[in-house]
């Protein structure tokens, strides 16, 4: 008889601790099922590199020994929006119309052409690049990034891509 009572007490004790866990279990169930969906919901959506060929300029405009600054307009889909962004590039007419991004490979500032010293200068951390885009001095890990280009119907076209900073060097 005494034995039975202890058994009963034990069952009721374990039952009580099971019931005590129930609210936590339900809470966890709700949070985990919504949390799983939340992970998929918030996962960043990476877009494939833009393979569009964008017009830079007519070949007839690209002359002379100096790099020519040009603006290109790229359409970009970011989530629910299509945005048009303007990017600057330099064309080197002397080097077979090679096109360079103006983004400094160090920290992403925009370089400009210094006519007096015949070089590209980055305004942020004093990196300098030669007229052919190669690195001269400063913290930049490499020269300016060349963009894929082609000539179509007498026009120079590029594919605009942004390369990562130092991680890719």
């Amino acid at each position, binding site marked *: 008889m005494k034995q039975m009572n202890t058994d009963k007490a034990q069952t009721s004790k374990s039952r009580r601790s099971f019931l005590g866990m129930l609210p936590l279990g339900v809470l966890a169930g709700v*949070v985990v099922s919504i949390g799983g969906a939340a992970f998929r919901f918030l996962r960043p959506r990476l877009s494939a590199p833009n393979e569009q060929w964008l017009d830079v300029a007519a070949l007839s405009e690209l002359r002379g020994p100096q790099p020519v600054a040009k603006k290109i307009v790229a359409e970009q889909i970011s989530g629910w929006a299509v945005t048009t962004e303007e990017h600057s590039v330099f064309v080197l007419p002397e080097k077979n119309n090679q096109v360079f991004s103006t983004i400094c490979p160090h920290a992403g500032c925009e370089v400009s052409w210094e006519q007096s010293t015949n070089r590209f200068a980055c305004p942020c951390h004093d990196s300098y690049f030669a007229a052919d885009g190669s690195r001269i001095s400063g913290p930049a890990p490499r020269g300016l990034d060349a963009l894929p280009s082609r000539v179509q119907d007498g026009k120079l076209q590029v594919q605009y891509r942004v390369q990562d900073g130092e991680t890719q060097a």
Partner: protein
Amino acid sequence: MSAPFSDRKAWLQTTGGVVGVLLLVQFLTGILLAFYYVPSVDHAHTTVSYIEKVVSSGSWLRSLHHYGSQWLALFVFLHVVRLFLSKAYVNRTLAWIVAVVMLGLVMAAAGTGYSLPWDARAFFSTRVAEGLMSGLPLVGRNARFWVLGGNDISTITLSRFFAVHVLIVPFAIMGVIAWQFGRRACWTNLSRNAIVGGVVFVALAIWCAKFPAPLGPAVEAMTADYLPRPGAQFLWLYELLKYVPGGLGSIVGVILPGMGLAILLLLPRLKAQRLLGSTVLGVLTAGIVTMTIVSYVSDRSNSHTREQLARQTAEEAKWRSEPFNPQLLQASQRESQTTSAAPVMYTKFCVNCHGPHGEGAQQGTLRFPPLLDVAAKPRRTTEDIVSLLKDPTAYGLEPPMRSFKDKLTEEQMREIAAWVVQLKR
């Protein structure tokens, strides 16, 4: 763990647990939706479509938020009824007051939330809110302006509803919960509450996996024959407003329910509690249940309505199967505008108030609205503007704007409308 597990009455005392679980669902899904939603008339519908069509689990999470809000309203109401039956207004006044306040807050959250997707049904729900406010005695005019944030429904109105929906009401709800549990830390009947809450959550999750939350056409794309229907928790109000003449709508739709809530709130302090409380709850329950049933029945029995609603459902299904179309954001560069000259009749009749280029004007204290970008507003297509010129009051415009039905031919109105819709800032 006082009552045995098989105690039926104890199982019925779990409405609080269900409300707790559903509130948790509303908070979690609401936070997630805010990651993509943009509260602006330009982007709201696009971003909600994006959540529905593109984002993984987006449709399910939005459905949880949508149907969860309806279930929440139901269970908070049942919770109030349950507390009333157990005389909580005498022996557990704090729980009672919290439950009644929660009912008001949940309805406020639902009412403001309905406007956010800025689809056709959101637009009409905003219109109804506007009408209910403007019909309030004494304060109506100002209440309407305060709700709208101006003299017409605009993107400012949407921002207001958004701020109330995501900041004010949730903070108030958290405050109320903190108040209850800060004062009374004893938990009774907890595991039964958890079990029933869990079961309701599973049911809601399955329901939402099966049924996506509705999304009507964007306000710009809405046709004149569109029949808006509110969510289940407002069907009673929608049906009720059919039967009361104009200005009385605000009394029946806002003041009476508000007074009912106030009486319930003050019940612990009132005399004849049982009688007053059961009258209020009885009238509310009877009214809500009857009107909701009547609204379902009348939609079914009228063949014209039934067909139109079926058409809308079919159109929504078709829209759902189409791929998402990203929206072009025009940043700084807008194409150079080649605005053609104003039509002769515009120069004759409209210029004095709206300016030679549609820029608006000020005459003394009267300020006349500009027409620039007017096509971006709801209900301002060329067709709409032609109808508006015939009957401005039908479009919510007030004098001095007058009807030009007798002064202009259909063709002249069409010419003016076509010129006005292309005006840009």
